[in-house]
């Protein structure tokens, strides 16, 4: 198994992203290619989970669309299409994977903000 890890490490590109975890509200700037043009789309929502490690690590972001339908997107953290990640809010949650958020809407789906004293 160690050989597999060595291979994964050799392909890993170290990227500087802020350290976010589930419950945080983040904006992911994602590069989208249309023909020859490239533009950046921002996907803002709550992080539901971080999964895996190394080059296979992914994270799931959930947001409510304009017509109140939940939209979830899974991003591989090593994806070259991710331009930047910005933390908007640190949330206080007690689980690493907050799937229960899927069943909640409106006021119930709020997450308490964690105050970080610098």
């Amino acid at each position, binding site marked *: 198994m160690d*050989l597999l890890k060595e291979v994964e490490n*050799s392909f890993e590109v170290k990227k500087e992203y802020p350290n976010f975890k589930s419950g945080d509200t983040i904006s992911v700037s994602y590069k989208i290619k249309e023909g020859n043009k490239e533009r950046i789309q921002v996907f803002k929502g709550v992080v539901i989970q971080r999964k895996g490690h190394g*080059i296979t690590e992914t994270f799931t972001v959930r947001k409510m669309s304009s017509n109140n339908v939940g939209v979830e997107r899974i991003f*591989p953290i*090593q994806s070259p299409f991710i331009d930047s990640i910005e933390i908007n809010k640190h949330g206080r949650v007690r689980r690493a994977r907050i799937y229960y958020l899927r069943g909640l809407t409106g006021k119930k789906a709020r997450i308490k903000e964690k105050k970080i004293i610098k």
Partner: protein
Amino acid sequence: MPGLIGKKIGMTSVFSADGKNIPCTVIEAGPCVVTQVKTADKDGYNALQIAYDEKKEKNTTKAMLGHFKKAKTSPKKRIFEFSDYKDDWKLGDTITVDIFKDDVYVDVVGISKGKGFQGVVKRYNFRGVNDATHGQHNRLRAPGSLGASSYPSRVFKGMRMAGQTGNVRVKVTNLQVIKIDVEKNLIIVKGSVPGSKGSYLIVEK
């Protein structure tokens, strides 16, 4: 086909230059030692016998021990014969993974994972009877009809039925080579290969 004996290490995924996430398999191929050079004059055909993976001396028969001694190498677990090796390899030479360095595609042979005695749904991707109601009972994964009735009055040979699934030799052709690591004897190919982690494979040009 010239090739090497190897071992499946496992699967992972890498990002290509255009940003696509590619599933790939890591294979440890070689280093293999030439244990016998067969020639047309002596053996009737040209081939290269190579061996891979260390084995304890106490687990080796004396006959095999002598065979390895001729090649001046330690006992090995797997032995395989390859034809059409172009370069002149001599007895006792070590062949490493860099014979693949100019190849874009390779073939991989392995023993697929055994699934035991399986029905036709798993074995041949039959659909079974899709209804659970409308008079159906115990038929959800059934094969259906085996053929016509009074003519031919028999079931044709080769009719696909339930039976042992997997644990057979499978060859996967044209796997794209993503990377070769000569130092660690690794070859990384796109897609999957037969067998479980640690099972022996044959990587061919």
